[in-house]
């Protein structure tokens, strides 16, 4: 019988319970879908890496022979080592202006012996006697290429047509980015092509040596053990970089995505569940207060307090179960499209959604746990009443003066309704506090989503319009004499300005801390690449010191004046010590800066440049692109506009996910305000009805409740601003990486959006409340016995 009572009670308050159910469901949907998606991603990665032998370490050198590699393989700790030739070549698509690149990677033909095997997805096997390649599927699709077709590329200054023999995927290019400085992959302009070594040699010259080593470790050895042995031995082969698997770009991004997904999957749902639990707690407390007499009656004819508590616990329990079931099953469903979405970013052959009920079960346990906790605390106090006490109406709440009344100007400016509302806030401290926290939480969630939407544009805008103001960047295939390169470029028609730069890969050390980075040498008259200090003032690289980006300084624990030791393959074993001149904030990349001439002096290689920044008339841009696309001295050519367009395209999809979060926050905010309003309304029906009898309109009566909410909302929004800043600070710290830092720049519009969003959900909740007030019968409300 109690079961029927329960069902009818719940149905009577269905809107409030539904709101709570939705909040719990959202939390568990996020929990289940993200965890499942992360699991799918993790499993696909593990399988692919294991099956295709992801290397434990990588070394880039200028050139090394097969015999030397065999010798290095004998080093303790090295299980397997292979050499390969990796070379980026330009693709010439007829009629296309933007540049595209193909990374040629040599692969062995007998798949069994290899580390980092390539999964052959479609087409014909590779042939050591034909200039054919396997290409990654995304590049083919993005450029509308097909197996059997040809790709025109420039190798060693020659135009060569590579036959597309098939499609393949390597575990090293799950997330194919050309450099770590890129923000995201662009399959239209960058792809990977796998080809046999003989083919590579026939294209690039028979004398070309291996320039990359990949190796796997013996089980008992760590990467550091082997690194210390390899590093000195590789120096004479022109060691450029030596890094472990975790620093490999594609792997790094994949792992970062995995850990941030897992973090979101475990933190976000807790917030929603906590809000859901608070709503349940308040609802249950109210229903128990309301049914005090009924509890007394049940006790009078012999129901025990445990039976009654069990009865009231079953309210949150069914909401928890229903919310858990709804949320986790919809999460299970959602994990399929989400996994599919990841397929577009991470090219893992076995990445697919799967049905597993582990997380559904966890989600159910979580929601039931939260619900019962809320239920226990909500029902605990009422259960302590003796039956006789329960039969009596509760002692009326004391009417008391509150502290705020001392602020005369404030107090006297309030209407009677305002005074009632304000006193009420303090009467129901706990509920006021929950409402306050609820609104603050939702406001901040909306503001955070607004911030993220904003900040990426800010970062890009900052980078593109202030830091790097060139139209085209040309990266040279090999360092060139600075002045002659500059002069040649300057002679092009339509060129307005040319600045050459020297970018030198180096390891910076401070004590035991070290970091691989690129030192960028800028001219003293540099205008196309600008550095700004904390206060937005331009700074120029000094003669005899380094400028560090703030992340780099943090990683090295360097301050202004700290002496940094500099190692570079270009120094051939020598080291140089330089002081830190200043530290500047930088959102993207982890770089060090020097005066170009000073850097040249340090490297003792003459006046060299590795790249040039160009500003030209708009009409001249296609001509310059055309001219240099095929030049042998040019490695790559970056068009700023192209980068910007790609970025905006990607933002469109990213922005969508961000706004989903804002919608969740909106729903949660509505649920909090709505369910708490319903409780307040039920509690004060008689009071409000009496005011109606006195002649107040429904509008005036509802003002008492709405004024209360606006007062709380105002306080919550004010508190929400620093809370948002704190949250973003925490998130920036958690999410910041070598690739970018989230700047703590707060545009007022994210707060304005959050304010409008908050006001909207409050108004919506109040509108539903007003309709309820209009509906209730005065006579009934006055007759009702509390």
């Amino acid at each position: 019988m109690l079961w029927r009572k329960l069902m009818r009670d719940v149905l009577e308050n269905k809107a409030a319970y539904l709101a709570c159910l939705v909040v719990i469901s959202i939390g568990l949907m996020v929990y289940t879908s993200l965890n499942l998606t992360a699991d799918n991603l993790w499993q696909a990665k593990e399988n692919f890496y294991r099956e295709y032998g992801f290397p434990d370490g990588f070394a880039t050198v200028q050139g090394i022979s097969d015999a030397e590699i065999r010798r290095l393989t004998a080093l303790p700790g090295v299980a397997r080592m292979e050499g390969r030739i990796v070379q980026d070549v330009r693709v010439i698509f007829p009629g296309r202006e933007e540049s595209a690149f193909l990374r040629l990677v040599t692969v062995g033909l007998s798949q069994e012996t290899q580390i980092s095997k390539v999964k052959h997805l479609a087409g014909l096997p590779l042939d050591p006697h034909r200039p054919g390649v396997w290409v990654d599927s995304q590049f083919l699709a993005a450029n509308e290429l097909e197996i059997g077709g040809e790709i025109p590329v420039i190798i060693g200054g020659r135009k060569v047509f590579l036959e597309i023999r098939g499609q393949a995927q390597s575990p090293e290019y799950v997330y194919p980015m050309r450099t770590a400085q890129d923000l995201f992959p662009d399959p239209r302009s960058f792809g990977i092509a796998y080809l046999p070594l003989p083919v590579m040699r026939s294209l690039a010259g028979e004398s070309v040596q291996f320039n990359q080593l990949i190796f796997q470790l013996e089980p008992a050895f760590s990467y550091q053990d082997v690194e210390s042995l390899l590093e000195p031995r590789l120096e004479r082969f022109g060691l450029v970089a030596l890094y472990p698997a975790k620093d490999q770009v594609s792997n790094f991004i994949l792992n970062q995505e995995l850990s941030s997904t897992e973090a979101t999957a475990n933190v976000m749902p807790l917030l929603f569940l906590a809000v859901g639990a608070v709503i349940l707690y308040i609802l249950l407390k109210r229903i128990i207060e309301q049914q005090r007499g009924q509890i007394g009656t049940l006790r009078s004819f012999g129901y025990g307090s445990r039976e009654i508590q069990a009865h009231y616990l079953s309210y949150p329990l069914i909401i928890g179960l229903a919310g858990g079931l709804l949320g986790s099953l919809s999460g299970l469903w959602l994990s399929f499209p989400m996994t599919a979405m990841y397929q577009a970013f991470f090219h893992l052959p076995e990445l697919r959604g799967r049905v597993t009920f582990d997380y559904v079960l966890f989600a159910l346990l979580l929601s039931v746990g939260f619900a019962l906790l809320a239920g226990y605390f909500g029902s605990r106090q009422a259960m302590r009443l003796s039956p006789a006490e329960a039969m009596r109406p509760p002692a009326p709440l004391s009417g008391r003066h509150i502290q705020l009344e001392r602020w005369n100007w404030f107090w006297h400016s309030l209407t009677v309704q305002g005074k009632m509302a304000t006193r009420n806030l303090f009467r129901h401290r706990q509920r006021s506090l929950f409402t306050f926290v609820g609104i603050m939480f939702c406001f901040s969630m909306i503001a955070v989503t607004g911030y993220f939407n904003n900040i990426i544009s800010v970062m890009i805008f900052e980078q593109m319009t202030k830091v790097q103001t060139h139209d085209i960047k040309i990266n040279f295939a090999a360092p060139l004499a600075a002045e002659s390169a500059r002069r040649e470029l300057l002679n092009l028609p339509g060129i307005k300005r040319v600045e050459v730069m020297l970018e030198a890969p180096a390891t910076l050390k401070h004590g035991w801390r070290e970091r691989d980075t690129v030192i960028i040498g800028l001219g003293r008259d540099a205008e196309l690449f600008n550095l700004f200090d904390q206060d937005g003032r331009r700074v120029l690289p000094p003669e005899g010191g380094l400028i560090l980006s703030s992340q780099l300084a943090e990683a090295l624990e360097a301050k202004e004046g700290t002496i940094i030791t500099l190692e570079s393959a270009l120094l051939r074993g020598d080291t140089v010590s330089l002081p830190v001149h200043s530290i500047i904030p930088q959102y993207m990349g982890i770089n060090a800066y020097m005066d170009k001439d000073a850097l040249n002096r340090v490297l003792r290689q003459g006046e060299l440049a590795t790249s040039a920044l160009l500003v030209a008339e708009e009409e001249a841009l296609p001509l310059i692109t055309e001219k240099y696309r095929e030049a042998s001295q040019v490695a790559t050519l970056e068009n700023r506009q192209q980068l910007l367009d790609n970025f905006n395209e990607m933002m469109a999809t990213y922005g969508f996910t961000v706004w989903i979060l804002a919608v969740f926050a909106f729903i949660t905010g509505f649920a909090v305000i709505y369910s708490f309003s319903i409780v307040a309304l039920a509690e004060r029906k008689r009071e409000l009805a009496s005011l109606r009898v006195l002649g107040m309109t429904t509008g005036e009566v509802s003002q008492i409740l709405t004024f209360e909410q606006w007062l709380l909302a105002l306080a919550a929004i004010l508190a929400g601003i620093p809370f948002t800043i704190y949250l973003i600070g925490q998130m920036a710290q958690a999410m910041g990486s070598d690739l970018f830092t989230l700047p703590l720049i707060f545009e007022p519009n994210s707060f304005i959006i959050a304010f409008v969003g908050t006001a909207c959900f409050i108004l919506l909740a109040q509108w539903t409340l007003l309709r309820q007030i209009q509906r209730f019968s005065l006579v009934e409300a006055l007759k009702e016995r509390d």
Partner: protein
Amino acid sequence: MTRGSWERKGETVEVILTGRKLCKWYQLGEVRVQALRDVDIEIFQGELVVVLGPSGSGKSTLLNMLGGMDKVSSGELFYRQQPLHGMNEKGLTRYRREAVGFIFQFYNLMPNLTAWENVHLSTEIAAKPLSAKEVLIDVGLGERLEHFPAQLSGGEQQRVAVARAVAKNPEFLLCDEPTGALDFETGIQVLKLLRKFSREHKRTVVLITHNAGIADMADRVFYMRDGRLDRTRNNENPLAPEEVSW
């Protein structure tokens, strides 16, 4: 020391409730409110007792003590041989479940259960219940089984409440102003039901009221004043419920 039985009108009747020096006080902040003072009381099997007194005289408190709804502050209270004073909550719950049937002034029905469901709610937990449906037919509500309280008149609601208490088949009924919210005619009908239960099942009914007219149908009348049992009156010839008036 309790006495298990008593000689009355040549018949041996059992004593079912015995109270000695029953006291109850409530602490309200710094004020101690004395609700019962040294009440000695004995209630027999099968009698109809009316407890009479103005409001605030302690009748409801006494009823709560007798029904195991609240604990005495001092004194001794026995149900047959079992001490109710000092009994823990679990014991009191069992006592209420097995021995007592309550009827309240404002019926206290579950608003979202039908008449039959309300009665069934109490028979579910009773050891030897009567049929919920039959008892409802007995109180004249055979046609109203599926009605919710809000669809019933006050008299009908109180009859559901009587049915709910009776259907548990308790040792005795405790009625707190059972006619207080009813008109005269309806009140008489409820009293007739209580009388019938008492006579037919030889069960005790304790009825508290401030309506002196009802006292005429009692076997014994307790007069309460200021938390004390002022005096007791034996009614040699109790009136039938239809004969009383107020």
